[in-house]
């Protein structure tokens, strides 16, 4: 945990719109799904940044943008100071070596016709400079060992492994090129709890061993808290709030974060009575037609006219600025306040 390390990735104003078209012969654009709509953050060396949000909030699109699987509509992703979104050819390939991805579904992200050895070794085919030909087999064996699989199983096929073991194969493949950054999109959500813990522990161990920076995308707030140094909460293509795990989980100032946290069932029956639940009404609006101003306002109990008119910037709220307290972290809400704080929601100007 090095909160003040240098930034490995700097993301600025990242936007990804998918066009919606109509017509068969003459296709014309009638709108756009604003999957990611102005996201900025830094990823620091050796840290884990958790990205949480509900389905459709754009967190997976964000992950795909970070590893250059998609080209952004606008904005920059700087890796070591260089904007990687406009790179192509050899330069792009070089950057990709350093930013790798682990996917959610260990059942569909591994080619069923390839052996485990070929799957994990495939990155070396694409980046031959990473390992001379003769040493590849040995490297793959080492990787299997590192992720807790038997190196003797190098010639087996994915279907011969359980879900948790397959996820380890995906992680080994992500590690093959010794990247600096790993973007993991829901890496444990397809796994049973007892196996999930094994994979979470493995990710933590590898981070320390290889000095990795993680972007950990997940919908499970408990897992994200466990693994993250900092957490970004996403809603409808934008970041609602970013802070350290303690700031976000113990002193959330954005109403969406508060509602999200209050909705998570805690495995403790005694907490049942203590917990104050904020029940949100309705569902997430469509990202093709997001609300004006603050995107959360249609489900927010604090919403006022200002929220429909002005987009709240992602800044440290004025009332907490310079206090140095745990509530002094960025939050995109006009009426940011800790839950139950005096004057909560009544500071409208």
């Amino acid at each position, binding site marked *: 945990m090095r909160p003040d390390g240098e930034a490995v990735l700097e993301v600025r104003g990242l936007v990804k719109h998918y066009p919606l078209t109509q017509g068969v012969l003459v296709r014309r654009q009638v709108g756009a799904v604003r999957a990611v709509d102005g996201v900025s953050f830094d990823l620091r060396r050796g840290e884990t940044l958790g990205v949480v949000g*509900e389905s459709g909030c754009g967190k997976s699109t964000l992950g795909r943008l970070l590893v250059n699987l998609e080209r952004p509509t606008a904005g920059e992703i700087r890796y070591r100071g260089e904007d990687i979104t406009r790179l192509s050819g050899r330069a792009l390939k070089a950057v990709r070596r350093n930013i790798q991805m682990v996917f959610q579904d260990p059942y569909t992200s591994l080619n069923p016709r390839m052996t485990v050895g070929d799957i994990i070794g495939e990155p070396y085919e694409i980046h031959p400079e990473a390992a001379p030909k003769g040493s590849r087999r040995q490297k793959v064996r080492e990787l299997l060992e590192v992720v807790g699989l038997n190196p003797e199983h190098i010639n087996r096929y994915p279907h011969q492994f359980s879900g948790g073991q397959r996820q380890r194969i995906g992680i080994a493949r992500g590690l093959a090129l010794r990247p600096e950054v790993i973007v993991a999109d829901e890496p444990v959500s397809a796994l049973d*709890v007892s196996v999930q813990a094994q994979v979470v522990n493995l990710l933590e161990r590898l981070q320390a061993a290889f000095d990795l920076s993680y972007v950990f995308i997940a919908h499970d707030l408990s897992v994200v*808290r*466990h693994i993250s140094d900092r957490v970004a909460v996403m809603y409808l293509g934008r970041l609602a709030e970013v802070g350290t795990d303690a700031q976000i989980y113990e002193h959330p100032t954005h109403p969406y974060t508060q509602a999200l946290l209050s909705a998570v069932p805690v*495995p403790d029956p005694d*907490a049942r009575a203590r917990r104050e*639940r904020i029940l949100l009404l309705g569902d997430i609006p469509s990202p093709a037609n997001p609300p004006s101003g603050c995107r959360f306002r249609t489900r927010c109990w604090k919403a006022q006219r200002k929220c429909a008119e002005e987009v709240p910037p992602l800044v440290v709220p004025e009332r907490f600025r310079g206090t140095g307290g745990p509530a002094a972290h960025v939050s995109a809400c006009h009426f940011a306040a800790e839950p139950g704080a005096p004057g909560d929601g009544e500071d409208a100007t």
Partner: protein
Amino acid sequence: MNEALLDVRDLHVEFRTRDGVAKAVNGVSCTVEAGETLAVLGESGSGKSVTAQAVMGILDTPPGRITAGEVLFRGQDLLTMGEEHRRRLRGDRLAMIFQDALSALNPVLTVGAQLAEMFEVHQGMTRRDARTRAVQLMERVRIPAAEERVGDFPHQFSGGMRQRIMIAMAMALEPDLIIADEPTTALDVTVQAQVMDLLAELQREFNMGLVLITHDLGVVADVADKIAVMYAGRIVETAPVRALYAAPAHPYTRGLLDSVPRLDRKGRPLHAIKGLPPSLTDIPPGCPFNPRCPRARDVCHTDRPPLYTVGPERTSACHFWQETLEDRDDAGARR
């Protein structure tokens, strides 16, 4: 009236597969009273859904086969009664909620027609009255603008709304017992909270028995009265919810509790359970959990532990339940 609402006795279910006979359920017994919520907790392959399907009579046979056991609903054995009789009970007195509403609802019928069908078939209502009841039900589960949306198809609703429509359908005839198989697993957490609240509210209102099948320890702690933990087709522990979370009496339950990260505190490394659940075609002799158990000794490899009574309304299928129970503190010291 002394008999339980639902009384499952020594249920066994097998599946014939290419790799041999998979013993999915191996002697499950449990009871549910009116107004009570029983949570059946287990990981994939533990037999929890198969148990539910056997109780509801919707098991695919073949390849599935109920080889032994009784399922008493208000004292009548569902497994031996005629199919016609059983079908009348199903929907009317017993209902089920599935995980995936999109595949459980009929995609080519409007939700209104599917809801109305319940009243037409079971209560002989006219089409018009049934439609009115359908709209009322949709309002009851808080579908906005129910009157306009009664003619919409399932795919036109969001995931949370579809789940609520399925709850409406299960509730339609005010059954005595509802079996909900992972009802909120596919939903986002804010929507999950809405759906669980609705379910709990309706349960109270109609004093129903509820069997909640889930893998989520958080959801269980939130709504259940008592818990049955399943592993490899067996119930390994039953307990009232508070007692179980305070001090589990089976090492598997302990392992589950130690392996989930907590929202309300930042923990140490998670204590994962080593290894994998057994294949159901090849369940280890003795205690099925023995290859993964930190307490396993010789006797665990040879003798199958019975369900010991370990306290008021508590059972555990562990030879060493006593020491497991006493080890109530932090797991870190032990491993």
